[in-house]
């Protein structure tokens, strides 16, 4: 898995937090679907890889989980953003924004030249 997974996990965590902020408590399948839809076809990975990221976030206290009933009466484990998670999301979103802004500025002159 190596480095790619780390990058993926880093950004994946941010996507999970954002999804939970937007949609409220949601089960793993729902989160996976939402991320896939939002990213279009660009991100198409196995849904299974989502679960280690969820566990990590839970262990760090950014989300917590609870078994509940889905809209069509299926039992599912629901994940919910905690207060610490909300703060972390704000912080990471800001950092991510800065990073992309810097990178964008960095890369744009190169594009002009070509």
């Amino acid at each position: 898995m190596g480095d790619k997974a780390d990058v993926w996990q880093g950004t994946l965590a941010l996507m999970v937090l954002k999804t939970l902020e937007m949609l409220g408590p949601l089960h793993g399948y729902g989160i996976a679907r939402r991320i896939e839809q939002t990213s279009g076809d660009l991100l198409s990975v196995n849904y299974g890889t989502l679960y280690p990221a969820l566990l990590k976030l839970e262990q760090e206290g950014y989300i917590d989980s609870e078994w509940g009933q889905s809209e069509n009466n299926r039992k599912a484990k629901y994940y919910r953003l905690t207060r610490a998670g909300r703060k972390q999301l704000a912080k990471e979103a800001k950092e991510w924004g800065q990073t992309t802004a810097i990178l964008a500025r960095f890369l744009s002159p190169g594009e002009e030249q070509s």
Partner: protein
Amino acid sequence: MRKLRAWFVRLGGFLGGKRRASQDFAKEMESHLQLHIDENRRQGMSAEEARRNALMKLGGVAQTEEILRDRRSLPALESFAQDFRFALRMLLKNPGFTITAVLILALGIGANTAMFSVVRAVLLRPLAYSQPDRIVTLASLWKRTGHKGQVSAPDFHDWHDQSTAFDHMAMYSNWDVPVTVGSGASTIAEYVSAAPIASEFFETLGIEPFVGRKFTDDELKVGSAGAAIVSDGFAIRSFSEPQLALGKAVVVDGKSLEIVGVVPLGFHFPEKTDVWLTSSVFGEETPSRGAHNYRVVGRLKEGVDLAEAQAQMTAIGARLEEKYPDSNKTKSVAVARLRDDMVSDYRLTLLLMLAAVGVVLVIACANLANMLLARAVGRTREIAIRAAIGAGRGRIVRQLVTESIALALVGAFFGLILAYWGAKSLVALAPPDVPRLSETGIDGNVLLFALGISLVASLVFGLAPALQVLRVDLNSALKQSVRRAGGGTLADRLRRGLVVAEIALSVIMVASAGLLIKSLIALQDVQLGIAPEHIVMAETSVPSVSLDTAKRAVHYYTQLLPELRALPGVRYVGGTTMIPGHTSSNGSYYVDHLPANFDITSPNAIFTVVTPDAFATMGIPLQRGRDFNDGDTYDAPFTAIINEALARRAFPDQDPIGRSIFCGLDSMNAMKIVGVVGNVRQQGPASEPEAEIYMPYLQHPQPGTNLRVVVRTSTEPGVMTAAMREKMRAVSPDVPAKFSTMEQSLAETVATPRFRTLLLGIFAALAVCLALAGVYGVMSYVVGQRANEIGLRMALGASPGEVLRLILRQALGLAGAGIVIGFLGAAAATRLLTSMLFGVKPSDPLTYVAVVGIVLAAALIASYVPARRAMRVDPMVALRYE
């Protein structure tokens, strides 16, 4: 922070709830699939298609589960715990190996920990004073000889007033003195260490009395009544409670002083002081710069380091040298940390012992490495199978290292038990005057030390077998039989190298111990100049305050000695201020007439006050002239007896009898030399005899009130003390007496050499035993390995004797290599011992011959059993293996 939280959650996962978490995950996957299938169905897929699509999108569940399992717990810890459990199981399965290994380890760790606890108490632990690192001692430094000594009062005042590096500087002295408390029937008289002190003493050390107060400035002035402060122990001993001591009187050397304070438990500076008194009660301090009667401590100012203080004091010393050349020529100042100064006599001995015991541990580790190596070779197949079914090399090495750590921890546990007893025995064996020895104990730092050396040791001895594993060739290991596999040259070389190292280290240890033993024997064989057998001694002191009272006081001895002589079994009786190892006074002497200017560089002699018959009692031969007699009174012409060394130096080829001699013991009267006696080694067996002047006690009553009464008996000396004590009490109950025998007292003078010789001897014996075990192990292994070859040789006609020689030759090869390397090491190591040797050179050939003999004998003994086994190899059985 968040990472830490996650770590704790995972630690929780490691400790329990694994099954539940796993079931939970299965349920979650189930629900995920269900939700996905539901949605696929809604989009119109068939049941089967919906399921396949969902499964495909989910990916490898087993893989995810694996990641999750690692994520839930701590995999490193998990595998460590697994290895540790496995290691303990392996150790339990092999009790013979385990007991041997744990025993060797416990010995090594225990000996080291015990030694370290002593070193820590004596050398390392800070003093119990406030900011102890700022407390220093200041001493006169004689630049020509490098000798450090006491300080004169005028020098002290110049140091005190001219220096700026110190918050406080104080002058004190100390002596053993009889002290009485109470009156009438409840009088308690005992010898205690007392310290007359001047101002700033307690401030310098940062100590406050916890009951009562410090001395006032008025009490410290000459002419005041003075006062005393006592130790907590003394107060409880004498008055049952510290508070009750306040206001009570304590009589020190005939002076009654009021107790105004009690210092906290454990404070006994200097040495073992129990009573501190205002030095003012003894009158003015001695005004001469040549009279070095005091000791000095100082407290460095915050932020001033030792070097700065030393530089400043050196400058002051140079100034005084220029200003007072008569008295201060070649005299400077030495500043040292109090702690370093206190333990300087023992530092080298203790560090040497720590090094020696460290060598024992290294040998123990080498032995264990060898044992583990043999086991690893035996386990080659097991390890190969593990590797074959997928265990990584790292994982296998980690498991072997874990086994070593488990072994080390078990060894450390038993080692600590051993260390507890060992430290106690060390304290009991050590010379009695080692400072702070009583503080020895097992504390947190000592535990940490034990744990530390165990882990280091486990790495050291665990490394060899782990390295061996890395070289195992899977293919051949699996194919071949256990016995032949893995006998790789690396393992063999490693094993032989370890044994050679063990032998070399033993050689160094045995050589060092041998040199110390020889020194001790030489020390004990030295002719001291007295006949020490059958002498009982009683240290006494008759209270007196002035010359006149002293003149009356010494009649105590005039009365006592004939009484003692009349006791049955007594042959001679006398009194003296000098016995070997204890002298009371020394200084310059002048022959024929006193010079106009005292010259401090004139030769010195030891001054000793004796009673008639003291020479006969001690067994000092009278070579010329006469002994003192009852006619040598204060009013008669003063007389003196000199020793041979003084006669030879001051009167070469002349007759000293009838000549005059002067010395400043207590008066400058001319003394007529009436006799010459044989030399005595006054400072103990390691010293050369010095010039000495003996003077009759009646003519020097003040020093004459502190005599050791010596009694030569024709019976066992110990049985005399009760009768002597009774007689002494009958003559005067106020004079306390401390009894001992001359032989006991002489034993104390060699207590330190005996201590280090005994310890190094024990450690060397341990080293040899361990090396012996090492040689035995390797030779047994070699015999096992060469069984085929031996069988073949025997089948071809070799006799058992030849086989025996074959094996012994190989053992001797190992021993020889070890001895040669050991000799090189010993040549370097024993040079460190030079200052501890007496009457023997570090390169003493006889010692080395003995070392070779001992080590070779040990190697032969250790290899004899395996060699015998080789002789009995059955050629048929051995050959069948081929």
